[in-house]
């Protein structure tokens, strides 16, 4: 091989690698992105059972019930819509009724949301930003300590 061919081979190899990486990223995006919804959105859009989404809102006061073992159910609300959620595992320390929460998972047949991850705030002074933004957009009043900082 001449030097020029060699250089072309090296550059070609590098470009091929980058193209492969870009394709990989696009494939991974198509597989693993979870869209964020609040209950009000779900009145107008239907999510196919099995599609991963993030569901955000407030844990409805009085909705938390413990079932078999460590399975719990609660309702996520944004005062416009509500979605029943079930989750098996240990809830985050800051999970409380009346406060913000983000649940990640998918709907089962019949409208029950099966969460495999539940995120609450890291700090008691602010809400998960996604939740706060969307709730504010829906015109939900956040009172007292839950005020977005």
């Amino acid at each position, binding site marked *: 091989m001449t030097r020029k061919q060699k250089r072309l081979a*090296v550059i070609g190899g590098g470009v091929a690698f980058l193209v492969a990486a870009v394709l*990989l*990223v696009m494939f991974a995006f198509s597989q*693993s992105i979870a869209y*964020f919804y609040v209950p009000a959105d779900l009145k107008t859009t239907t999510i196919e059972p099995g599609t991963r989404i993030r569901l955000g809102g407030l844990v409805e006061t009085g909705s938390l019930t413990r079932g078999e073992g*460590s399975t719990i159910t609660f309702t996520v609300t944004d005062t416009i819509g509500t979605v029943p959620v079930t989750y098996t*595992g*240990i809830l985050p320390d800051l999970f409380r009724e009346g406060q913000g929460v983000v649940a990640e998972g998918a709907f089962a047949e019949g409208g029950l949301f099966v969460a495999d991850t539940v995120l609450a705030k890291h700090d008691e002074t602010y809400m998960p*930003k996604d939740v706060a933004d969307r709730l504010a957009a829906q015109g939900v009043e956040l009172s007292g300590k839950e005020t977005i900082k």
Partner: protein
Amino acid sequence: MIIEIGHYALVLALATAIVQFVLPVAGTIRGDRSLMAVAPAAALAGFLLVLFSFSVLTFAYVVSDFSVANVWENSHSLKPMIYKISGVWGNHEGSMMLWLLILVFFSALVATFGANLPERLRANVLAVQGLISTAFALFILLTSNPFVRLAPAPAEGRDLNPVLQDIGLAIHPPLLYLGYVGFSVCFSFAIAALIDGRIDAAWARWVRPWALAAWSFLTAGIAMGSYWAYYELGWGGWWFWDPVENASFIPWLAGTALLHSALVMEKREALKVWTVLLAILTFSMSLLGTFLVRSGVLTSVHAFATDPTRGVFILAILVFFIGGALSLFAFRAATLKAGGLFAPISREGALVLNNLILTTAAATVLTGTLYPLVLEALTGEKISVGAPFFNLTFGSLMIPLLVAVPFGPLLAWKRGDILAAGQRLFAAAGIGLVAGAVALYIEHGGPVMAYFGIATGVYLIAGALTDLWLRAGIGKVTPAIAFRRFVGLPGSAFGTALAHIGIGVTLIGIVSVTAFETEHVVEMKPTMQVESGGFTLTFDGMRKGQGPNYTEESGHFTVARGGVVVTDIWSSKRLYTARRMPTTEAGIRTFGLSQLYVSLGDPIAGGGIVVRVWWKPMILCIWLGALIMMAGGAISLFDRRLRVGAPQKARRVRPVLEAAE
């Protein structure tokens, strides 16, 4: 009064930083040596001023001076002393002070140890450092001033976020910042080289120690952060691909690439333009990380406060430095002459492959981290990109890199023989496969990839040792000579081997925890038992306790193996009284490199409690590997060839050492 003096010292530090930028630049333009000589003095003065200012803030925390708003917001008189001190940087303002302190610390180091640098280069490097210091001092004074007073002074503080009340806060941020900010020196060297339009192997030899130091600290900082999250959050996870974690991981990937490309430039004068670009990009990623973490665009335990003016200010800093540096690069890169040629199969070729993969990986992680932010800004649509994305993309990219790593040091410069290198690695690959088979025998039933993962980890370790083995000539010369040669190998040879061994060790840890960990979530009442990792845990009951600023409920577990009691575990839930904030204090017991991890959930009706028990096989390998990598970086740093510094001297030493290679 002392607070105001500290505040004033910070203002003076800003003025000094401006001087440190303006005068040396004027000096290099006009060729005025006395103006250039201002740079080191200004750097030292700036460091002392910021150090004083930082000490004053620390003093305010130590004596719980709640007339300072920052202390009132983040401290409490009952907090243990260690958390009063580490709490200084456990909030936005204080952490920016630490950022600035470390930045001027590095400037002072360049001023002190840069005596052998060419005058113009040193002046320009320190001037760029001065410009960065100016930007951050302004940022602190204008948007994040920690010295603001409250009148009247409240009687008691609001306490630090309990999650941060941990020894981890004393270690993780300083180490991480030493890494993040350490790359600013490489950035300044790159800008200085572009201003001068001159760059050579000596430049790489000056830059590499800074890159090595920053990289070692960043490695330790990330590992420490990971371990802290693992034991403090009580979720049993050690890496979440959280945007904030990614923010520190991207500069690490870019910095690793920089270390390797600077090596090519130092030895062969090749890849000059690329190395300069990488030096700029690495620190740009550090700045981007600072922006992501500090601006409040992300929700995270790290984002202490979300004040839009701060976000805009940091964004402006980011755009100014990255945009400015890249524009300068675009204008001047053509003036940097390309250097040595090499065949694709050679040490240089292997290092180019390393750079290609590492920078692609960094770009991938960056894409996954920024995509949700960009999409939200453009369309308002909210999405989350989680672990599955990063595992798929980053994981796939790492496979070819990990296989290639042991080849690099075995290939000759300029033109290498890949078949010969492959033959020499037969033994390492064999040992790896045997290890994979042994893992299959001990712990069958895992995914096939897991055994290949463990085989690859062992192959990396054995491959790194092969290099040392061959260099010492073990088996070819008498043991006495081999021993002498081994001891006489340059520090960088050991550094390389250790760093590569560290990757192998970390990989083994990651693979075995991911594939073989077990998790049980059970409701337990006293005397009930749960099996995990071959141990039987018996729940004995709960006990109430009282700490200095919290109350806790702890569960006691007796751990037995084969009917014999081995140890016991306390696992607690705390309630921090000042903020009414609960935390989980997981109970962890170490058995060799594996751990038993117990965290408590909520009480259930009838007196029981939800308990989560994990068996984490080989988990300590993850952080042990990082420590080994860091040790590799440190050993390379103390390599004589780098320490000697002056190019002439080093050149004289080199032929002797090269004979030994």
